[in-house]
């Protein structure tokens, strides 16, 4: 009899080719979506944690006053209760590099004397290029971006006190414990001003626990021995500040993808079984046991489900890498590697067939309980009683009969209709969110003016070190007098310290005509920092330092300092960057540290000629033409969200397609009858399309407000970008109308093919055979 079961299953698969293909296709798309969704969710969740743990990152990087705590005393803190592991003490010295070096602006550089940390108990700094410092005079430079800068290995450096060093390598660590590393002997020779200890604590989940743990570890040291303690939680926040922009978006898309995929697979598979009830009845009447019937149906859906899962996993896996790359391309990831986790294919290979089996099992076990006669009659038509009032009422309306029949059809199978509609609703939500997010981003990136600019970079940024021919003042004058210039702005870039903060920040100082260049961020709250001792900063900076508009901080550079007021909040920006003006810069350093000039050209000016004239006047300058465009990270978000909304729309449309296919199969007889009494093919198409089009309309009515809500939630939770209301309210009437069409489009797209096949149904066959 098992031979009979197998033969019946094979026949069932063969006779339902279209259904088998649809199940396979839906499972394929859904599996790929699920894999991508999981990849995105998992990658967005844990990259910092994974990299941090892999490096055995330090929970607290503490700096001690060497005059108050001896090396022996500090070494003993490693054995205090609560300390899981410790490294150090290491001498720390701060040197100043007076000129541009390895592609960076001049400024202070913190150096820690440390032996090769490859197997250190804490903070295993990761070497990116070159080798670790093994002799005095050698330095390994921290390259926080993570990129290998191997071409700079071998570069000599000279500090402002005349100490000569050679860059022998580049490295980075999630703990950001130092700007560079030298041998312990070299550090001792640099007149260290601090001693560094790196701790991992047993209790390190909260800021509070970290403070307590550090206090326990340093108990018994003289008062004031601890100068500062950098918490990994702050670093983690700074790191994830970039990811935070994307996290809500990706999580939403990921969850949407999972839900839609699950809904559709459930719908398709259970539908296949329900529409087979009549067939089940026949099998039972010829002596199949209930268990054998269930086996036939499980086999019938398992074949395409398994094939779809395997292919979908493969496709998702291939796509996951590039998609993640694109999605995270706007974020600095340190040493964290963004790649799809190895458990993902295992997860989909196990979970999707399980889901399919479950979806088949529920209706199959119902069929299991039905008697043969019940099954035969349950399969021929939906049970009477549901949705009949609606049919009745509709038939009395003035609508064309084909339309009112179509409107009533979905009420006959409310559960199937609900599942299908849920999928369309989620499709609409996705499209709405995508549209909203991309519109908001596009608005936020819209260049304030549309004129052509010439971006002139000084040798500070370029790699070929040609000595400048002109001084900054002369360059400014030259740019002004070269024909075509309308405005010339100057940007200086220096790393400055903030009193009381361990890390240096990048400060942009704008000067010249407009104090605005094509790179300058919009200020969304307050105003541009154009006055003396004024700065502006992005939301991530303010967040991380617990600052707000109107607060004051003290900037420190080369021994000078000045207290500035935060007058503006920029739309976005790095947690380590502030913006100010040239006058304020002059209070800190006489050198303008010009990295860039921005020339706004007059309308109609010859950009090419201007560019040539600039490099002719001073070959150390590199000039490029800038036409207003879109930023890379925006493009990344756009591609990413568009991919997802396209995928989900396709899956939703497939759901509609399948629902109709099933409905049409069940209603073949009715369709044949309608045609026999003179329903035209066009009326059949109208009826079929109507039956789903209204679901599309309703889905639009439900999905759009939901999508708007989700969009608002996302935008408000993106912490590194402060969107003003004007950018959040992107919903104009035309856009809403277009979105309303999305639901209908998804529904109609899925309905087209089945509608036409319904119209072509051979009447004679149907009416006489069923």
């Amino acid at each position: 009899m098992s031979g009979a079961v197998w033969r019946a299953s094979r026949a069932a698969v063969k006779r339902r080719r279209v259904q088998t293909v649809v199940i396979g296709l839906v499972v394929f798309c859904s599996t790929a979506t699920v894999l991508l969704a999981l990849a995105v969710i998992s990658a967005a969740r844990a990259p910092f944690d994974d990299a941090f743990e892999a490096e055995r990152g330090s929970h607290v990087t503490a700096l001690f006053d060497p005059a108050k705590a001896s090396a022996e005393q500090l070494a003993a803190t490693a054995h205090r209760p609560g300390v899981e592991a410790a490294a150090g003490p290491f001498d720390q010295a701060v040197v100043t590099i007076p000129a541009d070096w390895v592609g960076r602006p001049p400024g202070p550089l913190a150096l820690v004397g440390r032996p090769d940390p490859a197997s250190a108990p804490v903070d295993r700094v990761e070497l990116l290029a070159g080798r670790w410092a093994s002799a005095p005079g050698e330095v390994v430079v921290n390259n926080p971006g993570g990129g290998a800068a191997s071409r700079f290995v071998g570069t000599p450096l000279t500090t402002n006190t005349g100490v000569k060093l050679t860059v022998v390598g580049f490295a980075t660590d999630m703990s950001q414990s130092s700007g560079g590393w030298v041998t312990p002997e070299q550090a001792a020779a640099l007149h260290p001003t601090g001693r560094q200890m790196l701790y991992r604590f047993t209790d390190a989940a909260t800021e509070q626990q970290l403070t307590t743990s550090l206090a326990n570890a340093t108990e018994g040291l003289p008062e004031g021995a601890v100068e500062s303690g950098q918490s990994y939680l702050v670093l983690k926040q700074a790191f994830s500040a970039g990811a935070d922009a994307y996290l809500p978006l990706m999580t939403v898309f990921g969850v949407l993808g999972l839900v839609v995929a699950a809904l559709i697979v459930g719908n398709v598979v259970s539908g296949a079984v329900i529409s087979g009830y009549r067939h089940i009845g026949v099998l039972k009447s010829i002596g199949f046991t209930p268990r054998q019937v269930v086996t036939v149906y499980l086999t019938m859906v398992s074949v395409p489900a398994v094939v779809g899962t395997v292919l979908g996993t493969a496709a998702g896996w291939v796509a996951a890498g590039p998609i993640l790359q694109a999605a995270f391309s706007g974020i600095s990831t340190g040493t964290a590697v963004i790649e799809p986790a190895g458990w993902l294919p295992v997860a989909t290979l196990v979970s999707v067939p399980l889901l399919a089996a479950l979806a088949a099992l529920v209706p199959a076990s119902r069929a299991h309980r039905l008697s043969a006669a019940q099954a035969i009659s349950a399969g021929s038509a939906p049970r009477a009683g549901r949705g009949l009032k609606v049919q009745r009422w509709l038939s009395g309306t003035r609508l064309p009969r084909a339309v009112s029949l179509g409107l009533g059809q979905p009420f006959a199978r409310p559960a199937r209709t609900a599942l299908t509609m849920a999928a369309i609703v989620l499709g609409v939500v996705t499209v709405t969110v995508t549209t909203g997010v991309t519109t908001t981003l596009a608005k936020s990136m819209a260049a304030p003016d549309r004129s052509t600019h010439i971006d002139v970079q000084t040798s500070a940024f370029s790699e070929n070190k040609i000595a400048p021919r002109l001084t900054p003042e002369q360059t400014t004058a030259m740019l002004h007098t070269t024909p075509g210039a309308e405005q010339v702005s100057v940007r200086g870039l220096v790393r400055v310290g903030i009193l009381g903060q361990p890390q240096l920040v990048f400060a942009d100082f704008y000067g010249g005509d407009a104090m605005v260049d094509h790179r300058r961020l919009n200020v969304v709250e307050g105003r541009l920092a154009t006055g003396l001792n004024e700065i502006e900063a992005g939301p991530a900076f303010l967040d991380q330092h617990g600052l707000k508009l109107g607060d004051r901080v003290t900037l420190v550079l080369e021994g000078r300092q000045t207290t500035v007021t935060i007058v503006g909040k920029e739309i976005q920006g790095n947690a380590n960057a502030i913006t100010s003006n040239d006058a304020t810069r002059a209070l800190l350093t006489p050198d303008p540290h010009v990295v860039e000039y921005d020339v706004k050209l007059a309308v109609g000016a010859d950009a090419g000629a201007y560019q040539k004239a600039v490099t002719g006047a001073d070959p150390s300058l590199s000039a490029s033409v800038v036409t207003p465009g879109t930023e890379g990270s925006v493009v990344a978000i756009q591609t990413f969200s568009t991919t997802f909304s396209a995928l989900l729309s396709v899956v939703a449309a497939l759901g509609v397609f399948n629902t109709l296919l099933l409905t049409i199969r069940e209603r073949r007889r009715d369709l044949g009858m309608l045609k026999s009494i003179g329903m035209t093919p066009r009326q059949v198409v109208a009826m079929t399309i109507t039956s789903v089009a209204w679901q599309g309309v309703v889905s639009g009515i439900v999905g759009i407000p939901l999508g708007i809500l989700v969009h608002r939630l996302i935008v408000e939770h993106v912490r590194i970008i402060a969107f003003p209301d004007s950018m959040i309210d992107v919903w104009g009437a035309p856009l809403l109308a277009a979105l309303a069409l999305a639901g209908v489009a998804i529904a109609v797209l899925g309905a087209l093919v089945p509608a036409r096949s319904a119209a072509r149904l051979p009447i004679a066959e149907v009416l006489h055979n069923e």
Partner: protein
Amino acid sequence: MSNDHDGTTRPDDAPFVVELSGVHKEFGDAKALDGVDLRIRAGEAVAVMGPSGCGKSTLLNMVAGLDRPSSGTVRVQGQDLGGLNENGLALFRRRNVGMIFQFFNLIDDLPALDNVALAAQLTGTTARQARRRALELLDELGVAHRKDVYPAALSGGERQRVAVARALMNRPALLLADEPTGALDSRSGEQVMDLLIDLNQIGQTLLIVTHDPNLATRCASRLVEVADGKVARERMLEASS
């Protein structure tokens, strides 16, 4: 019962409603119809009989425009069906033919009244008008009291009477029936037969396919016997009852 014809029309000089000439139909290699010639005048009642698989239903489908012949011509009401596209055939059926089937083919989620009204509503008749006429028909066929009942709750005979009402909704020139009593018990079968006889009495042209000699002899004025896709024999029957 309203009908263009009346009982006094003599079949001999009435116009032809159905004219088949040289109709062939192949399904792949199998020949379902192999050169059928058949003419039916207005007001006639013709019964088609023959062994299972001989091509009776196929013949009926040709006349109804539900299927097209492989060769040969089919004219109904003077109209060559070969000249019509799908859409044209649908409109043709709407106006000229009513069909009843062995298994009734009612729509399960519409009550009796709406099943009948449906046929008229397709042509754009308002729901109110269509329901009024449907009720008249149900009344004439003796099932008006069942108008709000869904097909599942009707007896076989009642279902077939509802189906007949639906077939008559658009006052077709030709009523086609494929085994109309095949699924009914003898008493219900009798009722349906009486109904068909009554319809023919007032001039309705009938083409009935059946296995049941009793049905053929009681209802039909002419018997066409089909074998192997051909008309094997034709004979006139005495007017019944």
